[in-house]
């Protein structure tokens, strides 16, 4: 079975080599996030004012910042935090959204309408402003950034799961599951959700990139991770002050890291769907 899965994944990658590139990129990023803090050449927090604002060189691959900290080390260490925020936020909104949406799509009726209107209200807010307000109200902590990001993503998962389940709820195999002794709840959780997973994987992959941008955005406006913790958004925010004096690397390097990460997640999306869906195998 696993060899068939691998062969299938190989076929998908041959047809769409960018998926492979994206997967490699994300594999690399995960490696950096896990082991990066032991591998970096400098301590990302300790300042060294004697060597502040140095352009990229052999000693400092991405230069140093206004406090003389090594930008490259900070970039590498920041990967863990950014990725953790994105993965946990998307994980929470997926888990909640998929279950709520699937239950609504399956049962319909009053519950469905009530949840639907709630989602509409949530989506009527400018989502980033909503996240700002939540972090401002709850306090400037990492958990709260995760919660805020999860909540503004939630409506998309609810709607998506609801629509996907709704079109399948009258199919023969759903009724068959009930004739085989499954309760409604078990039909939703064990039959319908696994079937909508491939499509939701695309949504999750796209969303991970978006969640990273969102966390960086919150940090950029001062509502996220607090300095001196290394984080890509803060690094861009701090570096922005020096851009007029030609210290481009302070903004460009974390910006590039953000961009490439988001790009990898976006490219991965469709490939993941094709690999997960057994019907794509022949």
């Amino acid at each position: 079975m696993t060899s068939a899965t691998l062969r299938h994944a190989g076929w998908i990658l041959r047809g769409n080599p960018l998926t492979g590139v994206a997967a490699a990129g994300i594999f690399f990023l995960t490696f950096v996030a896990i082991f990066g803090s032991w591998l970096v050449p400098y301590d990302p927090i300790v300042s060294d004012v004697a060597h502040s604002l140095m352009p990229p060189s052999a000693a400092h691959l991405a230069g140093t910042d206004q406090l003389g900290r090594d930008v490259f080390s900070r970039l590498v260490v920041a990967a863990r935090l950014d990725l953790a925020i994105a993965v946990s936020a998307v994980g929470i909104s997926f888990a909640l959204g998929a279950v709520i949406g699937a239950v609504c799509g399956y049962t319909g009726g009053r519950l469905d309408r009530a949840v639907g209107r709630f989602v509409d209200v949530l989506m009527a807010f400018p989502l980033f402003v909503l996240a700002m307000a939540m972090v401002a109200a709850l306090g400037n902590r990492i958990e709260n950034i995760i919660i805020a990001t999860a909540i503004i993503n939630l409506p998309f998962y609810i709607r998506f799961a609801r629509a996907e389940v709704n079109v399948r709820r009258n199919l023969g195999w759903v009724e068959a599951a009930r004739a085989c002794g499954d309760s409604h709840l078990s039909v939703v959780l064990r039959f319908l959700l696994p079937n909508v997973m491939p499509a939701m994987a695309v949504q999750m992959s796209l969303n991970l990139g978006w969640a990273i941008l969102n966390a960086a955005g919150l940090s950029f406006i001062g509502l996220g991770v607090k300095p001196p913790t290394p984080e890509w958004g803060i690094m861009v925010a701090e570096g922005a002050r020096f851009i007029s004096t030609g210290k481009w690397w302070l903004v460009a390097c974390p910006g590039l890291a953000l961009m490439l990460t988001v790009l990898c997640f976006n490219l991965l999306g469709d490939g993941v769907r094709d690999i997960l869906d057994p019907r794509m195998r022949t």
Partner: protein
Amino acid sequence: MSQPLLALRDLHVTFSTRRGLVEAVRGVTLCLDEGETLGLVGESGSGKSVTGFAITRLLDTAGRITAGQIVFRGQDITKLSSGDCRGLHGAAMAMIFQNPRAALNPIRGIGDQIADAIQAHRRMPREQARAEALDLLRAVQIRDPEKRLSAYPHELSGGMCQRVMIAMAVSCNPALLIADEPTTGLDVTTQKVVMDLLSGIAAERGMATILITHDLGLAARYCRRVVVMEQGRLVEEAEPKQLFRAPRHPYTRRLVAASPTATSRIADLAADDGDAQVIPMPAAPRPPRPPGTPPLLDVLKLGKRFDAGAAAVAEFSMSIGAGESVGLVGESGSGKSTTSRMICRLIDPSEGEISFEGQSIGDIPAREFHRSAFRKDIQIVFQDPNESLNPRFTAFDCIAHPLLRLSGMRAGDALGHRVGECAQRVGLPADLLSRFPHQLSGGQKARVGIARAIACGPRLLILDEPTAALDVSVQAVVLQLLDRLRREDDLAVLLVSHDLNVVRMMCDRTIVMRTGRIVEQGESRALFANPQTDYTRELVEAVPHIESGPVASSASA
């Protein structure tokens, strides 16, 4: 006649797929004269539809005509550019598709759609086009044509939609009409009306017709000449009577043998697959049950309303004894599926009583019924095998599912053994058990569905149109299988179907339903031989039979 209207010479069509090139049509040669009706018969995958699409040059992009000629009015149209093809569509040849509702634009009135078809080939003011559309609606016998002109497709029934499609197809008086399974999915009575109309209009306007169908009876009734296709090749060509009385090619012989007729019995349908299964032993006379035993299933005055609308089912009463088989027939919307689902306890009745072995089960809510001890006694086989298996379950998982849930088995050797046993009983090779549904053929999926239903040893099996989506040869095998299982296990069967031939062969008794009510019931053979109500008579007469031969197309009303 100097030359035929249409001549195919050694036509080859190839599709490029993930597994490489697949030849769907391999050397078809046939010709068609002006005004002739030709039936193109074959099972799924025989290449009959691809041939039709190739003639109209409507193949999808993966398909290509790799060799041969299609000569239409002396011109080889395989060489035409797509621009020239557009001129051909509608004006010279038109096509009627399988699913009329999907072929019509859902957000445009039907009058406008017909007018569009007219104006695509003839310059005329909109008013005149709409007036012609009105005439066409009259010609296809749509009631209140003035009112229907501005109706949308969803406001019309399936049969009405197909009439609109016919109106569009004939709007520019094409010389050739290709009808691809035009009545699949329609009720028998609607099928008869639509086909009579189609052949009437074709005869009136002198159009040649190619009728692509899997239904031998339909082809026999409406075509002067029939060609049979198998795996992309043309295997036999003859007049229907001769073809069906004395088929020459072995494939045609198998196909004819598998098609149920007005008098055939289950055993008459020749088994198609090689693994010569022992087919029905003579039914041992059932030991009479002691008097006073309650029937297995007793239904009293069952009724169902959806959302305060009209009753979908009303006053439905019946009973089934152990080992008895009862057929439930009726047109779509007659409430037969709703009834079967209420009896299967998948939905709740609004009123009435259901008792199983003398115990009332009608008042257990459907959402609690999965805990009932009777859950494994009442099982169901669903209509479309393509939709009744979870795409993420292998065949093994599908069959094991009820065993895990209802028989309290745990994953292990015993389960594997039991699943293998079920698979063997339905004739599913053991090496297919690890496959996913999309890797199985329609007949294999049907077997998995049946194995799942019998896994827990039910005593009442509900069959919801079990063969509607299957080819005739597969249908024959599946029916024989079901009949054998019924006899072996002394299973009571409730067969829901719109196919009267199937019901007559399978069932001791038959119940005819219309708009939620029982109109007639009785012993199957007697009921079909001598129907007591007009409605049943209409149903019986609408079934096309092989031996009925072609009808004079002008005789249609």
